[in-house]
């Protein structure tokens, strides 16, 4: 059998083939289909249109629905969309639905999936959201699809996929205290461009990657789509398996899949993380790379720490390291990705002060767990840019209009850089204020 990459091996197994080659078009079996309040109603519409009003989903255990985008809003249409999900879940008796207003409410789907044990090595995950690629951090094939594809998967459990060639990014060395996974992935995107990985898989490897915790690995995989990647993937190690086994409530068995020795990569790039600097993506594209030192001093109106990219415990821990005992100079919004993380902010502490206390006494505002202003949304969304202001953010996209106003300027950076900048009201280097 020819040597294959992880992505190729997972896809081959799910297509019941001994091997596949990049470029092959194959039908694969899905292990999990995830949808949310923005694309769920459309997906359900497609499903009903083609399979019938009374049709049942292909496997109730495999459909996960997570309302997360437009949650805490007065917008009637947005609320109606959550009702559409509710009704469908009731009709179908779906066990994995994380409804808002209940104890089960989670928040951002890409963080909810692993927290609730829906991500396992070797599996195939399809989600109606481009950042579904986040779950590649658990050694699975995870990719974003549209409503039609999702409606198809809902009815059949299958989807055609073109096998992508794999690009390999190797990180060596121990990450300095002023850098985070966000800096690494912004460096990669800046280097290859926002179309650099179009139709391709991005595999992350090297001791620098395996030294990262699970959340940081998720940040790496989360942003592969910003380079156009189809999926991002990291081989599972003990850390991955410990995380997965602790959360895999259904005890569903899984198989670890790793890249064969001698597998072919279509591209390879090696980074020494000790030589990197804090990175920023300037408006209006995630590949508009600059080092923080190059743009230091650029005036800002707002700072935002949240989303599936930059709203996890590791992100808040990092921001708190800088904000502790200090005050922000500009409006600063803190949005935990999930309710579990929101609870974490209340109980984890640094020298006797909880992260929540640190943020509040620094003058930041804390929102409810959800996508919030990461993608603009209804005008009453927490932290939304309703005017053409400048914002530094831990999110993943800075396209025109992404966080609200189409003339607003968004700078993407790590939570350390965002926190450092919140203190001064201008782009600042975390190396100058790490305590």
């Amino acid at each position, binding site marked *: 059998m020819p040597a294959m990459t992880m992505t190729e091996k997972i896809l081959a197994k799910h297509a019941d083939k001994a091997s596949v080659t990049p470029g092959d078009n194959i039908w694969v079996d899905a292990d999990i289909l995830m949808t949310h309040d923005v694309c769920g109603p459309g997906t359900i519409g497609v499903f009903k249109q083609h399979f019938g009003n009374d049709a049942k989903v292909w496997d109730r255990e495999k459909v996960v629905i997570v309302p997360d985008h437009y949650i805490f809003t007065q917008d009637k249409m947005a609320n109606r969309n959550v009702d559409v999900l509710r009704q469908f879940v009731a009709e179908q008796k779906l066990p994995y639905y994380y409804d808002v207003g209940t104890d089960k409410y989670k928040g951002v789907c890409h963080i909810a999936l692993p927290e609730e044990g829906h991500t396992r090595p070797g599996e195939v995950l399809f989600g109606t959201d481009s950042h579904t690629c986040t779950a590649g951090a658990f050694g699975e094939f995870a990719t974003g699809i549209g409503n039609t594809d999702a409606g198809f998967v809902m009815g059949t459990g299958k989807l055609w996929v073109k096998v992508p060639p794999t690009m390999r990014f190797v990180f060596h060395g121990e990450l300095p205290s002023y850098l985070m996974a966000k800096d690494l992935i912004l460096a990669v995107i800046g280097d290859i461009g926002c179309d650099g990985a*179009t139709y391709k898989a991005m595999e992350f490897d090297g001791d620098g990657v395996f030294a990262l915790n699970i959340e940081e690995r998720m940040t790496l995989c989360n942003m592969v789509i910003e380079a156009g990647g189809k999926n991002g993937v990291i081989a599972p190690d003990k850390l991955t398996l410990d995380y997965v086994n602790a959360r895999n409530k259904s005890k569903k068995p899984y198989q670890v899949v790793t890249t064969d020795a001698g597998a072919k990569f279509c591209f390879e790039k090696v980074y020494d993380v000790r030589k990197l600097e804090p990175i920023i993506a300037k408006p209006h594209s995630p590949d508009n790379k600059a080092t923080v030192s190059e743009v230091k001093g650029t005036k800002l109106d707002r700072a935002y720490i949240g989303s599936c990219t930059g709203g996890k415990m590791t992100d808040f821990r990092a921001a708190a390291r800088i904000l502790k005992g200090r005050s922000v100079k500009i409006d600063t919004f803190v949005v935990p990705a999930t309710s579990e993380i929101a609870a974490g902010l209340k109980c984890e502490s640094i020298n006797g002060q909880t992260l929540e206390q640190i943020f509040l006494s620094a003058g930041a505002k804390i929102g409810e767990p959800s996508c919030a202003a990461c993608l603009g949304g209804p005008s009453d969304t927490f932290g939304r840019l309703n005017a053409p202001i400048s914002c530094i953010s831990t999110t993943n996209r800075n396209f025109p209009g992404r966080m609200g106003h189409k003339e607003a300027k968004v700078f993407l950076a790590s939570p350390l850089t965002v926190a450092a900048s919140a203190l001064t009201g201008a782009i600042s280097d975390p190396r100058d204020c790490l305590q």
Partner: protein
Amino acid sequence: MQTTITGRAYVLGDNVDTDQIIPAQYLTYNPAIPAEYKMFGKYALSSVPPAQAGLPKGHVLFHTKDEFVSDYQIIVAGKNFGCGSSREHAPIALDAAGIKCVIAEFYARIFFRNSVNGGYIIPFETADRLCEQICTGDELTVDVESGTLTNVTTKESWKLKPLGEVAPIIDAGGIFAYAKKVGMLKV
């Protein structure tokens, strides 16, 4: 599949992302409801920065605020069209606005899939940088079978890239119709 597509060109640049094609605040409409499907046409391309809208001059409206359908039927763009989010609302918005096909150098993967699998618009690829050769408002004709694009206004013509492996899906009208044709789906 339609054999010829004719219409006026609306020209855009590189990296037109899905937030520009249909801004997030309109994603609360449900495309499964016909009356709401129309609304996506109304807001199609509403976040394109004005200087980039309708090249080469820019500042050309795709349609006026109250219109659901545009006077333009063919979009000509540069590289990486449709990058960003997985929202199928993006090809839906173009379809609802009356766009028949897009001609770009290449596409972001999810946008391309959604266009083909949903059967909304035909995403043609071209080796030429046509967004710098065609002007907004030019009359175009696309011969789908032969993959030939003609600029009726300037009498120029180009060969588009073959649709390749997705041609059968486009031909069938989307992934459901295709799956039925090949016996994958029996509903």
